[in-house]
């Protein structure tokens, strides 16, 4: 059992998303990328990506990935019956991709997402934007744009709930049970 506390409410998250929008703009400008496409990781990453996609006024529709088919723990946890088909409504070949997720912890979700993206084609580059970056990395994966870096110990897990309103919730659990924040 875990005891959940709201860490950030919708309004504060809206502020973070504004800051991330600005950071993404200057980052893309610096990299001389004028025509990026955006992909959100199901589900929290998609909620966040929808907001960033609007604010950045990206021409191409938003893509979404459900990385269930690419998880490295499939044989341990089995099939997730609620897999949403991934939808990438554009060709990823030679495109600059902004990959969006809610929480970056172990890096395994992002590894899986990148594997899936490469099965759609060969992108020019991938830039990672996450609302939360926290401790617990198990793979060499680095975000380009981050909303907030809360100091958390490994027993604590942080989750984005939504889609309306968005809230960041911190829970404490002994076994990380039900933790989806990787």
């Amino acid at each position, binding site marked *: 059992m875990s005891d959940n506390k709201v860490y950030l409410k919708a309004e504060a998250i809206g502020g973070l998303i504004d800051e991330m929008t600005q950071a993404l703009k200057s980052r893309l400008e610096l990299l001389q990328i004028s025509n990026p496409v955006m992909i959100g990781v199901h589900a929290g990453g998609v909620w966040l990506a929808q907001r960033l996609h609007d604010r950045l006024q990206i021409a191409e529709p938003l893509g979404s990935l459900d990385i269930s088919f690419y998880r490295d723990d499939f044989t341990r946890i089995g*099939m997730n019956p609620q897999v949403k088909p991934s939808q990438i409504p554009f060709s990823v070949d030679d495109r600059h991709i902004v990959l969006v997720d809610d929480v970056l912890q172990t890096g395994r979700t992002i590894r899986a997402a990148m594997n899936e993206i490469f099965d759609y084609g060969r992108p020019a580059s991938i830039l990672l934007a996450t609302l939360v970056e926290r401790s617990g990395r198990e793979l060499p994966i680095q975000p380009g744009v981050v909303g907030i870096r809360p100091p958390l110990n490994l027993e604590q897990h942080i989750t984005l709930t939504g889609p309306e309103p968005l809230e960041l919730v911190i829970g404490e659990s002994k076994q990380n049970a039900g933790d989806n924040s990787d």
Partner: protein
Amino acid sequence: MHKPNVQLSEKGKLKHFLTIDGFNRTLLTEILDTAESFTGVFERTVKKIPLLRGKVICNLFFENSTRTQTTFEVAAKRLSADVLNLNISTSATAKGETLLDTLRNLEAMHVDMFVVRHADSGAAHFIARHAAPHVSVINAGDGRHAHPTQAMLDMFTIRRHKGEFTGLRVAIVGDILHSRVARSQILALNTLGTSEVRVIAPRTLLPAACRTLGVHVYHDLERGIREVDVVIMLRLQKERMQGALLPSEHEYFQLYGLTEDRLQAAKKDAIVMHPGPIKRGVEMDSLTADGPRSVILQQVSFGIAVRMAVMSMALGSQGVAR
């Protein structure tokens, strides 16, 4: 529930897929939903996902079926599993001991799943009972008994075109007596809540206890398909027929062959299905088989997604069971 379903793991997850019998609506719907999520994979550059990488799937076919074997093979390969194809003609294999020996040898090669096709009813059950605990078995057709993945791909095709099963009227036409497909279809249709299932066949091609299956029986094609949403044609299984069950193929077509003309009796938006291979001019004419209402080739494509779903659910439940 008087006895545990051998097809489920201790945690109630799909372990073997041998027959539709014993599965509830929730599990059948889960198979259809999972299959739905795999259809997106076919539209990508790389039509492959790494879900079953490192797993070994063995197609154990004691009876020839190029189409079924190929779709199982494609499904396994799309999931990145390694595939062994073994065609063992029944005549070369004495049953019982030898089948067990074959099984033990394949297990020693670290096979994780057997896809079994056999002329004897119950063969897949036999293998499931005797296989090592980590091995899953999928029935790809056993005798006159069952062909559950074919039934599920038919359900998938119907759901794609018609949405819900409630309110639907479905007619199955032809050789019900010898058809494991029909048996599995009727079970699946009723489990999923189809409003009315009809079977249309001459008396000689109907099993004696047909009505206990929960179907309405017709002997006249035009009356039977009146106002139906789905017409499923079956193959005449001449290889299983002994004695004079049929006067002639020509006469059969006169009475039970589907034509565009006869199809007028069904609903305007009715779809026509057939598990294949079709005998044109016997079960249906070419105009109907290739006509606008035929979804026969879609059934083949959907078959891959459905088999991917069953394979991944069965092999994914291994870790959960322990």
